[in-house]
């Protein structure tokens, strides 16, 4: 996303492949066969819509998310008096199209969420496995570290990072990862403790496997299910964290649109231009809710099978 | 499967309990009939998956909700069909007329309550007496199951006790309501051999004192020989042989019973190769029309595959379901 000034907004005459938004998720979710009981189709649908938006942002967004057209500022959404189909969801104080910013904002959220989950989850996974497998002094030391991480005020720390390291994607991902790793480590350590009692771990030792090999080939594949569930359950946390940090000014600097930043932008005008804050707010809520419902369902499906094995 | 001669306290007729899964119907208990007389010990023997534990749970009406259901049959306790009772009525019956002890003493006792509390809870449900009264009864109950220093044990938690002692506490709770029928589902499988002997002798003593009937579920023929008056052998959801213990041991008539007895390592005799049964038990979702043991039976004939064998009498109150007995 580069900063670009343009002369005037493009008219919506140019065809936008809106069908992508419906078709791609539709195919993905329904192509698996007849609908099965209990599967949370609506959350899955919403999630895939948002992922599609993020992936195909340049194709879908009618305008540039950062172009300012001051004469078109604060236009309400089309269904409100004063709005038009030219700007479907209205514009903000700088005349930027809310819909386009929403679509590009999904992209930022997705990138941040993925990076933070990989980094934070990955670190938590490694620490959890090492602590659980070795036990003793190593376990004690690492778990005290985890305790410390829990008691630390994460948001404050994130703000501190933003101030010292400067705002940006890297700082944001680092801050959010620090929030996540501890809970991953703690839960996964518990899993590893239980796993260690299973005979095949002792037998692997008897067959000559080194500790590293056991952790990689025996422990890791068996905690993967739990790890996946943790990832899904934490997506909501990450998105809200990103939104909060952006809202507080510690996230990605403007003019790059993020949903949190968009909510912050509309802060001063809730009364007369409610759509500027509310629409991104609704988007955040919908995504987090869908992800949580999906995560709950995934956990119910994967965990009982874990026990059975 | 004899009819009620003498005083029958529990009669099970054609009991069927199925699991309704998405993949199909699992016919775990598929037409089980037996009767239990007052004061007798009936053994229910079979390997894992034969349906013996589920039979017990069906009789107690303690099936896991949602998955399994008793679809047919009658369970007559003192002549009345308890399958038609309401949940409230069953709550009264359980513990008072019919009681059950399970295999794992770890999970039978609540780890956060003292042994005394759990006993008192069982006792006061029936007597509704004062706390001190229930306390005294609890100590007595522990003494009765040969637990030494019961006044101290009352205040202990389950984890402070050994497996054998826990199982005795479980027994004390089970008989506190003076039931007429006790169902024991593999109560000694998790215990050491010497502890098992102690426990079986205790059960026998209690049974003789109270006159209660016991349905003893086990996979161990040694336990059957030691404890039971009669024995029923189960395979793939049905009873294939039933009769007085000495008769079944002396002349096992169903090929499965014969094979089972032959494949157990003995303390005497040759230590050469053990007899083994080829193959696997049938899938309970996909049961054959004929005899369920036929695919593994060394004596199988055509008629065995075509129709399920009828029940044939091979001795006094001794029956077995095998076509080869038709000639006799």
């Amino acid at each position, binding site marked *: 996303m580069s900063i670009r000034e343009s002369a005037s907004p493009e008219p919506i005459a140019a065809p936008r492949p809106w069908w992508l938004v419906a078709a791609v998720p539709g195919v993905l979710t329904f192509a698996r066969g007849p609908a099965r009981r209990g599967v949370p189709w609506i959350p899955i649908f919403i999630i895939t819509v948002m992922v599609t938006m993020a992936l195909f942002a340049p194709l879908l967004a009618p305008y540039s998310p950062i172009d300012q057209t001051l004469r078109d500022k604060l236009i309400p959404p089309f269904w409100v008096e004063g709005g038009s189909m030219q700007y479907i969801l209205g514009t903000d104080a700088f005349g930027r199209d809310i819909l386009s910013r929403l679509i590009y904002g999904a992209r930022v959220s997705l990138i941040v969420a993925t990076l933070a989950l990989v980094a934070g989850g990955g670190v938590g996974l490694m620490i959890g496995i090492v602590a659980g497998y070795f036990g003793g002094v190593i376990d004690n030391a690492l778990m005290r570290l985890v305790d410390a991480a829990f008691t630390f005020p994460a948001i404050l720390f994130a703000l501190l990072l933003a101030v010292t390291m400067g705002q940006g994607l890297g700082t944001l991902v680092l801050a959010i990862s620090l929030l996540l790793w501890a809970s991953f480590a703690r839960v996964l350590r518990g899993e590893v403790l239980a796993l260690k009692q*299973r*005979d*095949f771990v*002792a*037998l*692997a*030792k*008897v*067959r*000559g*496997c*080194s500790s590293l*090999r056991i952790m990689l*080939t*025996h422990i890791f*594949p*068996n905690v*993967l299910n739990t790890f996946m569930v943790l990832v899904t359950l934490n997506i909501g946390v990450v998105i809200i964290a990103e939104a909060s940090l952006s809202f507080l000014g510690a996230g990605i600097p403007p003019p790059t649109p993020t949903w949190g930043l968009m909510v912050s932008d509309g802060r001063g005008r809730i009364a007369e231009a409610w759509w500027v804050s509310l629409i991104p707010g609704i988007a955040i809520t919908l995504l987090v809710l869908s992800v949580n419902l999906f995560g709950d369902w995934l956990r119910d499906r994967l965990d009982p099978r874990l026990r059975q*094995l | 499967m004899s009819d009620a001669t003498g005083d029958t306290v529990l009669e099970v007729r054609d009991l069927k309990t199925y699991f309704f899964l998405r993949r199909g119907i699992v016919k775990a208990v598929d037409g089980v009939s037996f009767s239990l007389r007052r004061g007798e010990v009936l053994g229910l023997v079979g*390997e*894992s998956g034969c349906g013996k534990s589920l039979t017990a749970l069906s009789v107690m009406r303690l099936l896991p909700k949602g998955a399994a259901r008793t679809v047919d049959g009658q369970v007559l306790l003192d002549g009345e069909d308890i399958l038609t009772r309401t949940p409230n009525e069953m709550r009264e019956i359980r513990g008072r007329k019919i009681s059950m002890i399970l295999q794992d003493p770890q999970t039978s006792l609540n780890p956060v309550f003292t042994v005394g509390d759990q006993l008192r809870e069982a006792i006061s449900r029936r007597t509704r007496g004062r706390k001190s009264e229930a306390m005294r009864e609890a100590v007595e109950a522990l003494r009765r199951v040969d637990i*030494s220093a019961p006044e101290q044990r009352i205040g202990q938690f389950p984890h402070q006790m*050994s*497996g*054998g*002692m826990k199982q005795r506490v479980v027994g004390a709770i089970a008989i506190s309501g003076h039931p007429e029928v006790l169902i024991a589902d593999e109560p000694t499988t998790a215990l*050491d*051999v*010497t*502890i*098992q*002997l*102690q426990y079986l*002798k205790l059960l026998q003593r209690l049974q003789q004192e109270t006159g209660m009937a016991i349905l003893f579920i086990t*996979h*161990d*023929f*040694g*336990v059957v*020989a*030691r404890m*039971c008056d009669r024995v029923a052998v189960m395979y793939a959801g049905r009873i294939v042989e039933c009769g007085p*213990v*000495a008769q079944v*041991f*002396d002349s096992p008539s169903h090929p499965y019973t014969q*094979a*089972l007895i032959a*494949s*157990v*390592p*003995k*303390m005497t005799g040759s*230590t050469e*190769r*053990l*007899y*083994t*049964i080829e193959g*696997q038990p049938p899938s309970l979702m996909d049961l054959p029309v004929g005899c369920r043991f036929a695919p593994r039976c060394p004596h199988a004939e055509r008629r065995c595959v075509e129709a399920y064998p009828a029940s044939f009498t091979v001795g006094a109150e001794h029956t077995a379901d095998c076509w080869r007995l038709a000639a006799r």
Partner: protein
Amino acid sequence: MSGGELNGRQQGEPLLRVERLRKYYPFTRGILFAKTLGHVKAVDDVSFTLQAGETLGLVGESGCGKTTTSKLILNLEEPTEGRILLEGQPIHGLSGDALRRYRAQVQAVFQDPWSSLNPRMTIGRTIAESLIVTGWGDRATIGDRVSQLLEQVGLRRDQSTQYPHEFSGGQRQRIALAAALASEPHLIVLDEPVSALDVSIRAQMMNLLKDIQAQTHVAYLLVAHDLATVRHMADYTAVMYLGKIVEYGPTQALFDNVAHPYTKALFSAVLPPHPDRREEEIVLAGEVPSPLNPPSGCRFHTRCPFVMERCPREEPPLIEIRPGHLAACHLHTEAAPASTPSRMH
């Protein structure tokens, strides 16, 4: 049974020699400044030998120390005192190549078929594990060996790509056995290999174990609580109680002439195969004492039906009461000469 004679096989060093083995676990209280309150004497001065191709049965009830002994032999734990020698070489304190060689020679099959296999690995990969770790050969060679092992335990070659959950309990134990045989070990520790299996499957597994022993001349250390199983499989039997061996001898001789009161009680607790055959039953009084605080003198004296005045004072030594047959009981120390046991050297 291979080489089950009592006399005339003592050629050189035995395959396995266990000398005065002790394993004490400290029992502590407190988190920061843990105070050692005492020790759980799980294994307390155990000695025995095992020749190549033989089976030694280790019998006892829970808490007797047989599982701990097997863990020590498998090098999963370090002994507190004493030593274990495999083909004359001490097995503890090894590292690197020496340890790898040891691991190849001593393998195990455990009790629980549902816990012995990694659910996320194909059984072919599990069986090949000891070969992969030692770099035994390339993929093709290892694959061939896996196929051969599968057939040896009565399964099919094409099943190597399947996962554990597709197999029954009995089949899983066979897979575990195949995995143990992969590195051509000289000794396999069998820790209750059949007790979790159904009665009719046990027979299959026991036959298979004996067949494999006849084919490969592997030695077994069979840990079991079921006397009939031990009778069928073991050449020699050692009975353990609270960390000590109380009786030892060639299986048949021991079974015919049970000497130690605990062994007698154990035998008596084996339920009769027929309702009419009611033997004299010895029911032990009381509970098994805690290994934290074992009774003084003879550890069995608190429950022994034949306890004498001497028993709480003096611990009876393990002495030979008949050629090759040892027992630790004062009932026999009066009669027998205190000679050093011939087999236990």
